[in-house]
């Protein structure tokens, strides 16, 4: 397998843009990434496009008016993991030698077709969806169990929102740029116990794109890319039997494969963009990704380790909690942040001397599955 590098990235700000269709957002991201890579658009040989809600052939609608047609375009729907799935396909196309330079794109408009005041839920052909389950409650049940098992408090969980807002206040691409206190987090309105509004990621619109190429191509271009050391995508196991919901098995499995592929461990990782859709999720991923022991998440965050200036900075762009979660776009936007950080271009939120970054995404409410799909990538410079 060949070495694979990211040589150009770009994204739109994340926020609520009901008047900008996903393809319009996608086009902006593609143009930015191609310009950032400083390549001729005609050199891009394929495009992998993550999107969840738009329906048929969204990638063609992104590329058609950019003069990037005729090439292989693959549309990718894999729930919250769609963006990282697109990246994984781009990685495979280069690593296998199929192509020399391709793009991974994620684009989504969620506000245009959806009323607020309803929680995201599993589909109505899913047994839990029919009987009223919603995504915040699925994570809420994990949180209740975790809190009972390890004595974590609502204040402990609120620290994740406080930290991620602190980070996003430094990020011009973030939807929320305000600081919040523990008290404000806990006083916001209840969504699904134990989560108040500020402990749930908001919906958002946005797009992100990355130009991915082989080492040979990168050297030809004279570019300095960010290396993809691990690219893993797995699906959830179907299981009706009782299990410990405080151990997200799909993430455990995907991250072990990623560490193995990169020949690294948690100790080597400077920053992590994880799937912090709810505050408890970041707690579970500190532990499952191997950054602290089971039940130690509260002390891990209180130690400052996960905060800008700490040893393993989590959600430095503000995470899903402050960026919002435009489903198909998130995985590629995590990639953009990792690349900016590793190139030292992350402005006020730069992690000094960052050399390695992990991005993690998991999601999709399918009853009987931990999550539908989970992606993990590791990048180095």
């Amino acid at each position, binding site marked *: 397998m060949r070495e694979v590098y990211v040589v150009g990235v770009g994204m739109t700000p994340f926020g609520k843009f009901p008047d900008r269709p996903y393809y319009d957002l996608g086009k902006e991201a593609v143009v930015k990434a191609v310009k950032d890579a400083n390549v001729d658009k005609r050199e891009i040989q394929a495009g992998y496009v993550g999107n969840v809600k738009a329906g048929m052939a969204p990638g063609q609608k992104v590329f058609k008016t950019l003069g990037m047609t005729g090439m292989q375009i693959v549309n990718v729907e894999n729930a919250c993991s769609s963006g990282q799935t697109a990246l994984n396909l781009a990685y495979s196309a280069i690593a296998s030698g199929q192509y020399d330079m391709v793009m991974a794109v994620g684009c989504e408009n969620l506000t245009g077709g959806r009323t607020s*005041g*309803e*929680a995201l*839920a599993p589909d109505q*052909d*899913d*047994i*839990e969806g*029919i*009987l*009223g*389950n*919603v995504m*915040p*409650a699925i994570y*809420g*049940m*994990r*949180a*209740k*169990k975790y809190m*009972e098992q390890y004595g974590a408090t609502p204040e402990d969980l609120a620290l994740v929102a406080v930290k991620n807002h602190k980070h996003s206040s430094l990020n011009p691409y973030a939807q929320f740029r305000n600081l919040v206190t523990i008290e404000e987090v806990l006083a916001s*309105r*209840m*969504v*699904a*116990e*134990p989560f108040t509004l500020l402990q749930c990621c908001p919906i958002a619109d946005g797009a992100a794109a990355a130009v991915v190429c082989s080492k040979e191509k990168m050297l030809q271009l004279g570019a300095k890319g960010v290396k993809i050391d691990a690219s893993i995508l797995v699906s959830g196991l*179907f299981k*009706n*039997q*009782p*299990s410990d*919901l405080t151990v997200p098995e799909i993430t455990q499995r995907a991250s072990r494969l990623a560490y193995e592929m990169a020949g690294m461990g948690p100790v080597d990782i400077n920053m992590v963009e994880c799937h912090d859709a709810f505050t408890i999720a970041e707690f579970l991923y500190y532990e499952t990704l191997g950054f602290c022991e089971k039940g130690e998440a509260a002390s891990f965050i209180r130690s400052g380790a996960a905060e800008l200036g700490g040893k393993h900075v989590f959600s430095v762009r503000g995470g899903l909690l402050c960026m919002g979660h435009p489903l198909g776009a998130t995985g590629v936007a995590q990639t953009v942040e990792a690349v900016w950080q590793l190139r030292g271009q992350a402005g006020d939120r730069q992690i000094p001397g960052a050399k390695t970054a992990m991005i993690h995404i998991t999601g999709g409410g399918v*009853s009987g599955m931990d999550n539908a799909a989970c992606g993990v990538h590791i990048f180095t410079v």
Partner: protein
Amino acid sequence: MSGQPTIDTNEPVFFHPDLFVVPTNGEAPYLLGYKCEDCGKVWFPKLEICPECWTDLKQITLSRSGKLYSYSIIHIGQRGIKSPYAVGYVDFPEEVRIYAQLAIPHEKLKLGMDVEVIEGVVRLDKNSNPVMLSYMFKAVE
């Protein structure tokens, strides 16, 4: 899923005969599991073959009560269900975990509590009339 309910009729839809039985003789309702005679695993809801062995599954009657593994009280939920409403996962002695709405006063909810299957209204129309009946869990008295 087969037998997907429609919600346009005047009578509440009963969801779903392959999962849940309410005896007409007044006996207590119960859930149905599907057991693999090769590996012994029990599945819910209905499957034709075991996902692991691909062996035909045998319908079994599940215990009427189990333990509440975890729960949440939903304040912003789905349309057609009056908020706040409680939901939870219940672990049955047959080693199967089942999600449902909880007909339990919220202040009485406790992880690990014993709960049992009952029939209840799981969805309302916009005038708050019942449109769907199915299984729920209540506290064991």
